[in-house]
C-alpha cells in the first residue's frame, strides 16, 4: 500500500532522508522511531507530496506520488501531532467539511455515527472545535480516515502530549483500523506505544532506516535498548541475540 524505493531528500546539501526502502502493507502498522531530525516527518511529507524527492520514489497504492500527487491523496488520511480544525465549526461540521473536500457527502446521522465510532460522543461532536482537547481533535482525524475509507494512514507523532487515556483510545482506534485492513505509518517517540500497536518498528537515524524490527519478537524494554544502542552507535547484536534466546 505504501512503498518507498530509495527515497531520498536533501535540503541545501543536508540529507534529511537517505535512500529509504520501506513497505507498509494493508493490515500493518509500521512505527518509525528516531530522534528529532531523523527523517520521520520528511518521510511522511514525501508520501503526502508536500516535498519533492531528490531521488527515489514514494508510492501509494501503486501510484507514484511524484507523478500523481492528487490521485494518491484519495487513498491517504493524514493525522498530524495536532489535528488542525476550524474553531468556528463544530466537530460534525469540521468532519463534513473535510469530507466534502474529498468529494464525499454524508448525512448528519452518518457523520455522527462515524464520530462515535472514532470515540467522540454526540454532545461533544456538536460543540465548536475551539473547545476541543488534543485527544478530541485526534478523534476527528480518525473519523476523517474512517469516513474517507482511506487505505493508508500517515500519522506524525499523534501521541505527543496526549494524556494516557486519550493515547490509549487513539491506539485502540489504530488497532481497529489495522484490523480493518488499513496500512498505517506512524512517526513517534513513544517506544512503548510503538511496541503496543506496531507490526514492525523502524528505527531512523540521520535520515537512514537503521533497523527494522518485528514488534512481535521483542518486548518494549528490548526495543528501547536497541533504539538507544543505535542512538549511541553501540553494538545491537548482543541485544538482538538476547532477545532471540
Amino acid at each position: 500500500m505504501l512503498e518507498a524505493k530509495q527515497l531520498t531528500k536533501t535540503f541545501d546539501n543536508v540529507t534529511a532522508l537517505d535512500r529509504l526502502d520501506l513497505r507498509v502493507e494493508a493490515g500493518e502498522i509500521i512505527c518509525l522511531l528516531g530522534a528529532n531530525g531523523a527523517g520521520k516527518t520528511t518521510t511522511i511529507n514525501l508520501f503526502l507530496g508536500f516535498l519533492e524527492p531528490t531521488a527515489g520514489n514514494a508510492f501509494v497504492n501503486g501510484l507514484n506520488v511524484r507523478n500523481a500527487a492528487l490521485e494518491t491523496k484519495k487513498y491517504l488520511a493524514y493525522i498530524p501531532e495536532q489535528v488542525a480544525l476550524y474553531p468556528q465549526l463544530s466537530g460534525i461540521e469540521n468532519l463534513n467539511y473535510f469530507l466534502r473536500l474529498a468529494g464525499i457527502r454524508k448525512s448528519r446521522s452518518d457523520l455522527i455515527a462515524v464520530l462515535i465510532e472514532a470515540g467522540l460522543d454526540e454532545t461533544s461532536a456538536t460543540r465548536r472545535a475551539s473547545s476541543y482537547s488534543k485527544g478530541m481533535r485526534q478523534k476527528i482525524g480518525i473519523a476523517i480516515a474512517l469516513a474517507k475509507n482511506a487505505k493508508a494512514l500517515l500519522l506524525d507523532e499523534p501521541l505527543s502530549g496526549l494524556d494516557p487515556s486519550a493515547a490509549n483510545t487513539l491506539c485502540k482506534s489504530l488497532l481497529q483500523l489495522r484490523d480493518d485492513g488499513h496500512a498505517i505509518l506512524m512517526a513517534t517517540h513513544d517506544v512503548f506505544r510503538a511496541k503496543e500497536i506496531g507490526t514492525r518498528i523502524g528505527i531512523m537515524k540521520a535520515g537512514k532506516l537503521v533497523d527494522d524490527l518485528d514488534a512481535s519478537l521483542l518486548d518494549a524494554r528490548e526495543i528501547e535498548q536497541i533504539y538507544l544502542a543505535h542512538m549511541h552507535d553501540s553494538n545491537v547484536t548482543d541485544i538482538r541475540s538476547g532477545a532471540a534466546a
Partner: protein
Amino acid sequence: MIGAIAQREIVSFLRSSVFVSIAAAFVVLLTAAAFLSVERVKTFERERTAAEQVDRYVWDSQGERNPHSAAHFARYAFKPIPKFVAFDPGITDYAGIALWMEAHYQNPAVFRRAEDLGDAGHIANLSPAWVLQVIAPLFVFLVLFGALAGERESGTLRQLSAMGVTARTLFSGKLLGAGVGLGAIIIPALVFVLFFAGHTGGDDILPDKSIRLIGLVLSYVLYFVSVSAIAIGVSALMAEKRAALIALVALWAGSFVVTPRITADIASTVYAGPDSATISRALDGASNAFYQDSEYRAEIDRVILKEYGVESKDELPIEYGAYSLQKSEEHAHPLFEKIYANLNAVHKKQEGVLRAASLISPTIALNALSAGLAGSDRVHHQKFVEGAEVHRRKIVKQLNEDYMYNAGEAGYGYAAGEAFWKTIEDFSYIPPTFLSLFSSYAFGIIVLFAYAVFGIFFAMWAVRRAQKRIAK
C-alpha cells in the same frame, strides 16, 4: 470543492464576532454617509430651485431698460445636480454650481460649497463613494488578513493540502467565500445607497442613468475583487496572521489613503493652475482686447457698411453701438476659449499625474471612474461650462440684436420691457451620456480590470507558494 471552501468561509465569517462587528460598523458608516450626502444634495437642490426662480423673477421684473444694460445685469446658469452626486460628489463642492452669464465676460463657475464650509471644509467629505473607496478596503483587509496566514498558522493548510486541495481550488474557494461574505454586506449596501441616492434629491437629468448605475456597480465589484484578491495574496505570503495584518494595514494606509492625497498634492504643485486673480486679469484683457484691435474694428465697419450699401455709420439703419458691442463679444470668444483651454490643459496634466499614480493605487483609478459615472467630475463640469457659455453667447446676442434692430432714433435711450425679457429662455442643460465620454474613462476601466487580473494572478501565485512551503 470550491463551493465547500466558500461555504466554510462564509460560516466562519458569520460566526466571527470580529466580522460581525466590523460589518455592522461599515454598514452604519455607509448609511450615515448616504443620509448626509442625500441631505446635502437636497439642500443644494432646494437652493438651486429657489435661486433659479428668483433669477427668472428678477430678470422678468427688471423693468424697462436698454437690452445691453440688461446683458450686464445678466442671468445665472445653474448647474443641475445629477442624483448620483449624492453617491459620489466628485468635484461638486469645489467646482461651483452656477455661472453668471454676463456680457463681455465668460465667468468661471461660482457658489462653491467648499467656500461656505469654513474650517470644517477640509474634513467634510463623507460620501458613500468615499466610504466604499477608502474605508471598505480596510474592512476587507481586516476580514481577510487571516485567509491564508491563519490556515498556515493553525495547521489547516497542511490538512487541506493532504486532502488534495490545490492552490487554484483553495484560492477560488477563498475568493468566492470572500465575494459572497463581503459582497452580502457591500453589494446590497452599494445598491441601496445608489437607489437611495437615485431617488432623493438631485435632478433626473442623466440621460443614461441605467448605464451609469450598472457601470458604478461593476466598477465597485471589480475594485473589491482586486482588493479581496490582494488581501488573500498578501495573507498567503505571510507565515503569521499578525504579520499579514500589519502588511495589509500598511498597504491600505500607503496605497489607499496616503498615495491619492500625496499624488493630488504633487499634481497641483507640479502643474499649478493660475490663481483666480490671474484668471480674472486674463478675462479682463480678453474682454477689452476689442478696443485695442483697431484692425478688427476697421474690418467690422467695412463689412457692415458694405452689407447695408452705405458710406457712413450714420446712414446705417441699425444701431451701430449695438452692432459694435456684439462684435466685441465675438472678438472675445476665441480669447476666452484660449484662456479656458489653457486652464483645462493644466487640469489635464494634473489628471495625467493621477492616472500614472493609479498604477500603484486602485483607489485613484476608481475615484476618477466613479465620479465620471456619477456625472460629478471635471469632464462633466466642463461640459456644463461649455453649455452655459453657448447659452450666454446666445442670450447676449439676442439682447444686442434687439437693441441693434429696434433702437431706431432712440439710440442708447432705447429700452425693452417685460415682454421681451420673457422671450429670453432659461438655461436648460442635459449632461452628456457616459458613452459619449467613454474615451475619457477607458484608461480607468482598463486599470481597474488590470488590478483585478493582477490581483487574481498574484494571489494564485502566493497561495501556490504557501502550499509549497508547508513542509518547510
